[in-house]
């Protein structure tokens, strides 16, 4: 009898796998088909004498939207999204990272006005190849014609901190994160506090949530992400900033490879419509 159940179980998971593969292929097919139609429509809207070709029309769209986002947007209807996150985390849970696509995502974030973007994977691959990522980001910015000084990126990797005033001044920050920035940083902060207790500078009763929060931000001042876009089939955060994600909204996308600007906007839209009650 146990064998029968096992057989049925295997069949169930084979069917699920087939279903997932079909859905992925359909999505790619649909986007390619839709993409052509949509791009033509958009190109016609934005530039009457439209040029053919994907990169140009996408470029025009991103520049157009970034202008609207960057400008004083008083009318909600004129804004891209109702509510923009300050910090967006790009959590890649796929085996093969595509630096070009990640660079696209980073540049799109900055174009719509998001001032802090972090990039994470649980192998620390992006941290190891951070110069490659920066190159790709700069290249994508050039391609989209966003050479405006507003888009000079503050690039962080391996713990170089950003002070609060730098975020406020509007210069976008890209931070490359790894599991070290998660539990390991929490443990480091705990160790630092215990050392002050050992040296009789503090007592155990002195620690509370605001104090520990400040302690954590002493070495790496990473703001809490309001939104995490997770790319890939694994339904887990895989060690991404455990302390910081207490109120973070998670939006899952199937893959970052060939991710489209439309997908990105849809994810942002989903964030902007969520309601946080904060316990009340």
């Amino acid at each position: 009898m146990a064998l029968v159940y096992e057989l049925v179980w295997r069949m169930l998971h084979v069917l699920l796998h087939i279903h997932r593969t079909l859905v992925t292929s359909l999505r790619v097919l649909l986007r390619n088909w839709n993409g052509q139609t949509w791009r033509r429509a958009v190109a016609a809207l934005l530039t009457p004498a439209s040029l053919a070709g994907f990169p140009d029309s996408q470029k025009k769209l991103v520049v157009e939207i970034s202008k609207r986002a960057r400008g004083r947007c008083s009318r909600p209807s004129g804004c891209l999204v109702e509510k923009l996150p300050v910090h967006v985390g790009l959590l890649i849970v796929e085996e093969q990272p595509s630096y070009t696509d990640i660079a696209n995502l980073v540049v799109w974030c900055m174009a719509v006005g998001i001032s802090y973007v972090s990039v994470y994977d649980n192998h620390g691959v992006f941290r190891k190849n951070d110069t490659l990522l920066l190159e790709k980001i700069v290249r994508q910015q050039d391609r989209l014609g966003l050479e405006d000084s507003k888009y000079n990126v503050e690039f962080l990797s391996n713990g170089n901190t950003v002070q609060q005033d730098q975020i406020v001044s509007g210069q976008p920050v890209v931070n490359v994160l790894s599991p070290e920035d998660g539990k390991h940083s929490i443990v480091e902060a705990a160790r630092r506090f215990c050392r002050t207790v050992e040296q009789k500078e503090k007592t155990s009763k002195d620690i509370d949530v605001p104090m520990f929060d400040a302690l954590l931000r002493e070495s790496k001042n990473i703001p809490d992400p309001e939104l995490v876009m997770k790319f890939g089939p694994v339904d887990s955060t895989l060690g991404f900033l455990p302390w910081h994600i207490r109120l973070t909204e998670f939006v899952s996308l199937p893959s970052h490879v060939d991710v489209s600007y439309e997908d990105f906007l849809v994810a942002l839209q989903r964030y902007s419509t969520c309601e946080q009650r904060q316990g009340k």
Partner: protein
Amino acid sequence: MTRRSAKTFTGSRPRTYASVTASHEEEDVSVKAMSWIREGELNLIERLSANVLKAGPVPKHVAFIMDGNRRFARKKHVDRQEGHSQGFNKLAETLRWCLQLDIPEVTVYAFSIENFNRSREEVDGLMELAKLKFLRLLDERDKLEKHGVCIRVLGDLTLLPLDLQQLIAKAVVATREHNRCFLNVCFAYTSRHEMANAVREMAWGVEQGLIKASDVSEALLSECLYSSNSPNPDLLIRTSGEVRLSDFLLWQTSHSCLVFQSVLWPEYSFWNLCDAVIQYQCNHASIMKARELHQDEQRRQQLEEDDHACVAELLRHHGNGKPADGPRRQEAVAEYAVRREARVKDFLDALRNKRDSFLTQLADSQATVA
């Protein structure tokens, strides 16, 4: 009448609750509704599905964010208290389904420290509901013993009214020795408070001279959390469609399967649970791989830290840092690690005693009559 109520409560269709709220004439029904243990069996299709699922990997520990009680109440045009009450009934039912799926441990988010920000009326109502539930639990001690249910409450109990603290302590102490299945209720809890509290406990250990600051590690921090007696959850389920963790088990779920379901908690069904378990099974291989990677990294870091600490110790005691050759150094580091582990064990024993005696004293203390 009893048979009818039994049928009502073991059904897995959401419509069950409409019939429950309608049948106010049955006192017996509403009393049964408050029970922590739901007797009952799965029907044939449910049993077959459970057996199929159990052929694959099944989570050993599932955490629930039981969201949607108030929205359910609005939807059914009943008051909030009723929504919370139905939510509790659903918890009892879900526990039974978990046991029938061979999931021995469940953690639930019952009351967040942030929930104290709700209206005085609602908070008082929830405290009263909690008191009734824990009183009921103490009444059902025999049933809990029969099923081997161990109840633990995680959170800062000192934030709660004293009489509720005493009831909780009695319930936890009464079921302490049971070990067939485990229900952890997070009450007056947030994950950040839990982590800060763990750091406080480690600092206390340093103050008492039990451990050194250099002994602080990821493993030690995990042992100082409220959830130290449980393995990390394999699966976290949040109902009502929200896609955030809301300060729940942030440390423990770093490598758990997260499933967000749009069903409202009081309408949760056996099939929703099966859906979540299937998603866990689909993610199982990748998550196991990620966990192993993390554990390897932890081991590597511990070795590195032991090496540094050992060298620092030798420097302090003998004036010279590094033992000359490789094997001697390895030996010194291994010896250091053994001593560190002994210190940590003594500290954790002391911590356990501190927590146990706090609860025992609370359980034995007389309730102050309001």
